[in-house]
């Protein structure tokens, strides 16, 4: 019975005690089984996120057994010559690296009102890493994609509980042939850790995290978008804004692709008490396939805005760190806001755009602090 052990453990555990999780340091435990870990926003102070601070999103069980010597990646469907690659064969293909900000589509879900079902992510289901591995297009070209091939499907080795539909998704052929779309085998210079898809994952830069299928084992070229739960009704947005309770027809929705423009304040942290003087306000901003052009900071709840300084490190699909040197001389309660704008002219809205699954929350970020 699943309930026998938990009652003892719950009784024994003092409230707030940390849970040992090898290799995952100080993360917010959204779920232990399946593993879902969120980074506290104060970790967003390095351009590359160390792996122990990189969020983990699993829809189901991780593969319980995975021997890299036995692992194979197959490519079939609408191709001239189906192929199967071992990890050794994959490692012989030219490697490319992409620094990419990976964000769960549901990041910020807990900020929606009324609340919607799903992992109640705060602001930390996002991280930036250097992903490396062969380009997907090199493998597709090796197999020869037929003219009928319009979408590319990924299947991972996630272990499916009960009758839950398998985690299978697809991307359009144009994105699959993008020079920066990878079969990633490395993350920040080391082989992918288990929680991040060892031995290989798709890396679809600038897109929602769910596009970058982990523990990849099958690629299939399709004539049309894959039909399955995680393409529809999962990971779709209504074409028009909806109100809670509105019925939304499947044909009035579209599959999520690229991420929104967004910024997060990493410090000072919400609820903190500080001394008057220099108070550095800092954080990260990203925009999917677009570039961050500016970040503005308000220290008076949005009455006035000030330009933040963008960090030196940058890459097309990666977040920019930003900072604003705030000098505060008067004690009191302050509301600090951050607002990013991107190269497509998009700016963060003042409030989350509510949708039934709580996707792509990108409202202006806010922290409240006390200065004494």
């Amino acid at each position, binding site marked *: 019975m699943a309930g026998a052990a938990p009652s003892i453990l719950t009784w024994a555990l003092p409230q707030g005690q940390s849970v040992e999780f090898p290799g995952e340091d100080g993360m917010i435990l959204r*779920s232990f089984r399946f593993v879902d870990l969120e980074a506290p926003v104060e970790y967003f102070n390095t351009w590359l996120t160390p792996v122990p601070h990189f969020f983990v999103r699993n829809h189901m069980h991780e593969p319980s057994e995975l021997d890299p010597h036995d692992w194979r990646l197959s490519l079939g469907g609408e191709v001239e010559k189906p192929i199967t690659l071992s990890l050794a064969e994959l490692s012989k293909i030219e490697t490319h690296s992409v620094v990419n900000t990976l964000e769960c589509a549901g990041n910020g879900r807990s900020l929606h009102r009324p609340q919607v079902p799903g992992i109640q992510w705060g602001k930390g289901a996002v991280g930036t890493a250097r992903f490396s591995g062969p380009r997907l297009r090199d493998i597709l070209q090796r197999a020869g994609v037929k003219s009928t091939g319009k979408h590319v499907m990924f299947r991972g080795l996630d272990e499916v509980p009960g009758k839950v539909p398998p985690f299978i998704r697809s991307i359009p052929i144009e994105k699959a042939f993008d020079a920066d779309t990878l079969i990633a085998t490395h993350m920040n210079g080391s082989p992918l850790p288990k929680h991040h898809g060892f031995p290989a994952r798709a890396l679809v830069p600038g897109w929602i995290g769910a596009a970058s299928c982990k523990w990849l084992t099958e690629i299939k070229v399709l004539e049309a978008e894959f039909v399955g739960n995680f393409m529809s009704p999962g990971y779709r947005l209504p074409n028009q804004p909806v109100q809670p309770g509105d019925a939304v027809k499947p044909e009035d929705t579209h599959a999520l692709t690229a991420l929104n423009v967004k910024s997060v304040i990493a410090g000072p942290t919400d609820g903190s008490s500080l001394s008057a003087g220099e108070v550095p306000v800092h954080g990260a901003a990203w925009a999917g396939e677009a570039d961050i052009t500016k970040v503005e900071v308000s220290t008076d709840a949005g009455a006035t805005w000030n330009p933040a300084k963008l960090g030196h490190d940058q890459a097309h699909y990666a977040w920019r760190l930003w900072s604003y040197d705030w000098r505060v001389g008067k004690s009191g309660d302050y509301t600090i806001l951050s607002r990013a704008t991107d190269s497509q002219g998009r700016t963060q809205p003042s409030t989350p755009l509510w949708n039934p699954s709580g996707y792509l929350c990108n409202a202006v970020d806010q922290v409240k602090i006390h200065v004494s």
Partner: protein
Amino acid sequence: MEVCSDVEEQGFSAASSARERAGFGHTGRSFYPGTSAAIALFALALASPLWALAQRSAGSSVTADLPAGPMQAKATTACLECHEARIILQQRLSKSAWTKEVDKMTKWGAVVDPTDRDALIDYLSTNFSPEKPAYEPQRTSGSGKTSK
């Protein structure tokens, strides 16, 4: 309890060095509690001071529990075979939203007797309604790091 029982107690084959580096030798399915672990922990609870049990449990498998109530046992059977309680504890949903969730999960294999459906929805929507205070998640401690 046929749902998911095949993925609860799997062990590992001999770990290769690459798999060890990826973390498969440390944090796989055997990380989760099974019946034998529950029995061992119960024995430990009888034999050890509370602090010792807390130390031990913090260093191994830690799961949460659903709140007491007339449907606790049946909710545990129906829901926690496939995922742990924290996924439920963090939700704050209306009754209509819980109804959709229960029906979806039943379709996906949760074992819910039709005569228990309404009571299960009541249990969930009473304990995890929008009016309840926000759930406070725990943090992980990363001792025994296995990755960079």
